[in-house]
């Protein structure tokens, strides 16, 4: 058997886009969108895909269950996995921003209350500007936090800005641009470097 590359793909729209890129590069897997199976392979192309929860992609790669994987830069920044970041895939583009109600002004006398899913990114950002914050970790519906007075601002991903607008929020400050990245296990890369580099060359 030739070398098989194990790829962790994030379930959902981003993962489907990434799969399309791989398919166009000659790494298609005919029945990948059929049924509820989570593992698919194409032995002739030397590739095997797993659908996993997006935030778990770095775990699969770091622990070697997958050789490579695709995930948003936001997840890499949040979890800092010990992996190679081999390529910016240039898709899944969005921005990590601080959003606030329209009339918000920052009162530096008090710690800023920040609601977010991305605790580490938010803490790093405010540490870099020397602002005291009170972090509120939420797992979803972040936009509601300022409306209910739970937080002063939120740190979240914004693609089009529609959700912000519908909740009367505006972008207060941009933290960084985000896009999908191709990551690789630092050990597995050594044993499959030829196959991985061939794939990279075709993407």
């Amino acid at each position, binding site marked *: 058997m030739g070398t098989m590359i*194990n790829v962790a793909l994030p379930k959902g729209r981003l993962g489907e886009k990434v799969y399309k890129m791989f398919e166009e590069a000659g790494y298609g897997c005919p029945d990948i969108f059929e049924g509820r199976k989570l*593992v698919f392979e194409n032995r002739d192309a030397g590739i095997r895909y797993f659908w996993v929860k997006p935030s778990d992609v770095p775990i699969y790669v770091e622990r*070697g269950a997958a050789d490579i994987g695709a995930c948003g830069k936001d997840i890499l920044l949040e979890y800092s996995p010990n992996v190679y970041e081999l390529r910016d895939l240039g898709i899944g583009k969005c921005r990590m921003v601080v959003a606030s109600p329209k009339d918000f002004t920052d009162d530096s006398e008090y710690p800023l209350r920040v609601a977010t899913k991305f605790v580490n990114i938010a803490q790093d950002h405010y540490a870099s500007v020397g602002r005291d914050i009170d972090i509120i970790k939420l797992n979803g519906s972040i936009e509601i936090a300022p409306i209910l007075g739970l937080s002063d601002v939120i740190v979240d991903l914004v693609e089009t800005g529609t959700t912000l607008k519908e909740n009367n929020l505006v972008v207060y400050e941009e933290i960084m641009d985000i896009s999908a990245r191709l990551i690789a296990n*630092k*050990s597995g890369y050594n044993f499959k*470097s030829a196959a991985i580099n061939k794939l990279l060359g075709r993407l």
Partner: protein
Amino acid sequence: MQYDQSVLTRTERRVFALRTLYSRAGYRSYRMRKFEDYDLYSRNKDFLLSDRVITFTDTNGKLKALKPDVTLSIVKNYKDRPDELLKLFYDENVYRVSERTNSFREITQMGLECIGAADNKAAGEVIRLAEQSLALVAEEHDYILRVSDIDMLTFILEDMTDSKSVRSELLRLSGEKNIHEIERLCAASEIPEDKCRTLTSLLGLYGDPEEVMEQLKEICRGTAAEDEVAELQDVLDHIFRDQDRDSGQASRIILDFSIIGDINYYNGMAFEGYIDGIPECVLVGGRYDKLMHRMKKKSRAIGFAVYLDTLGMLGRTAGDQAIESFFSS
């Protein structure tokens, strides 16, 4: 007394094999106490993988620590003799915070140190022993020893910018082989394109030493790292000169310049060992002349450690084998 080797655990067998290898190469066993003055670690925090150590107060009121590292203790107790070569190996438990569980763990570590007149010839021998160690502990699995000269990266980075923070960010990105972010950061920091290209080309090198050295010479011509190429070639000559005398087995040494270390302690050769089927590094080593200088010693030094606990993952890790059996069932 004859004894049956099958009574040994897998780890004990590995320790036994490595002890034999190192003793035959002229290294002598070194034992040390479990405790160390806390002061040693507080002064050399950056050398340790984590700055958290287990401390306790001794009966005389002195603050002590359970050893998180062996090398620092060896260096501290070493009497500076720069003209002689001291060759030691150890098999010790160290106590560190595991990044994954964020709690203290006892780690079994075996390693060797070559201190004193540790020149390129000694470096060649140590790197050869690192490769042989991998061959011994990997059993039937494939393994790779990635070798770099971290001065190469250090010199190129120093030539790129005066900003320490940009340099340390570039160093971190180099360890991720993160070419696209390096290019972005260079553009944002107004680093000239040719200097950026030297770094990205260096990081793009990967593979057989002979082939890589040809490309390396091209990339480094006229750059800050040019002189270092000859130095690396000299070490490689020592590695492969020794190898000719061995069994003639194909080398599993490859060059890869994305290995990074704290440049306040390490310089010159650096290497990392990997075994197919284990997702993380099982052997780490390199030259640490700078640590010696920081501890007011004139001697040079090079060594490595094998993480015996990590080897326990062999044969029960995720990856190809597990998936193959899923598909064949």
